[in-house]
């Protein structure tokens, strides 16, 4: 979910809207979002499945070390979504 108002940080700044695609569906995010934050803003909380047991995984460390947030972006596999900014027209697929 998106946090729109905050007593200390103030109301959310109006930023440019970005459209992207995730697993075949269209979503919106703000310029400056990472792919991970854009997905979480849209209430997507399961990011991928583990390779062997197919267990659900999602963002964990948030600094690009654990690889739990990896997704395929514009055809490139294993992109760390916690560190990668979302761009207009990005095509994202969970792995």
């Amino acid at each position, binding site marked *: 979910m998106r946090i729109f108002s*905050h007593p200390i*940080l103030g109301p959310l700044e109006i930023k440019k809207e970005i459209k992207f695609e995730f697993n075949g569906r269209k979503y919106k995010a703000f310029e400056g979002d990472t792919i991970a934050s854009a997905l979480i803003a849209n209430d997507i909380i399961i990011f991928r499945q583990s390779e062997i047991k197919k267990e659900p995984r999602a*963002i*964990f460390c948030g600094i690009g070390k654990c690889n739990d947030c990896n997704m395929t972006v514009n055809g490139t596999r294993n992109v760390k979504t916690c560190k990668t900014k979302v761009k207009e027209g990005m095509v994202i697929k969970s792995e």
Partner: protein
Amino acid sequence: MNNSVNESYDVIVIGGGPAGMTAAINAKKFGASVLIVDENDELGGQLVKQTHKFFGSKMHYAGYRGFEIGNILKEELVELEVDVLKNAVVWHIEDDEVFISFNDTSSNIKFKKIIIATGAKERPIFFPGWTLPGVLFVGALQTLVNLYRVSPGKSAVIIGSGNVGLIVSYQLIQAGIEVKAVIEKTNKIGGYRVHENKIKKLGVPIFLSAEIKSALGDKYVEGIEIISNGKTKTINTDIICIAAGMLSQNILLRTADINLVYSETYNDYLPIFNDEQILLENKNFIVAGDVCGVEEASIAIEEGRLAGLSCCEHLGLLDQKYNDLIFEIQKRLSELRDAR
């Protein structure tokens, strides 16, 4: 700042956080040729997501927000024309060269002195269900909520009652997320009374001498089961946030075969170094910041200054009139530590 690098430098700094940046600035200022390397897209380390105002003295950028300090330091690097390599991972260090992976290739670059300022990592804890979506490190949650203004859930349970756990609990409540509980392993609260009181006032229960039995949920976190004072308790929650402390990110020291010794003070494995931040084992290796003991940004900044100056001194570049500067920094470090 340019992305083309030389084959050798007087000083290479690994890590572009507050310690690394101030080390690079001071090394360049006092006469060395400097390259700073960072694996991220932008410099700043943990400063980039620090939205709160720093306090302390002018030397420590009091009144500025963390990310503002990051910007100030980045500008100084540009002004001083320090070479910067971003999106670059140092994967090995030998006596006089580093091996760096960037632009889909690997390069070796020679150095006379190397400053390792790779910072800290979070201490993981493991329990059944820890891999579920919704379980995440406090750094990750804080970044999502404060910097990106999103949350992976409406309620959270915080594991760890140190200052970070307590402060983030308060920040989450401010952001509209319900903090159901703080879970502490030992029999007393780890953080300062001022933070403890803030969240107690808001009705957050703190469970002491508590053990995690399991995270609950099938596809994502739905709750957590703990044992506190012998009783099992189930708490419904969307998020389980791990705030169990920080550790030195010392893997490069290990690949360079540097001895790490357990420190009781820091509850961590650290290299042995003198009061100029120089490793006893190899005088061309200098450390600065959380990698030589997790403390805080102001200490990282002073250690970075010291590391940069110390390199120039040992390279014979430092004008005698600046000798006092090293002593002044050591004095400030001592004062900062006494205050903690």
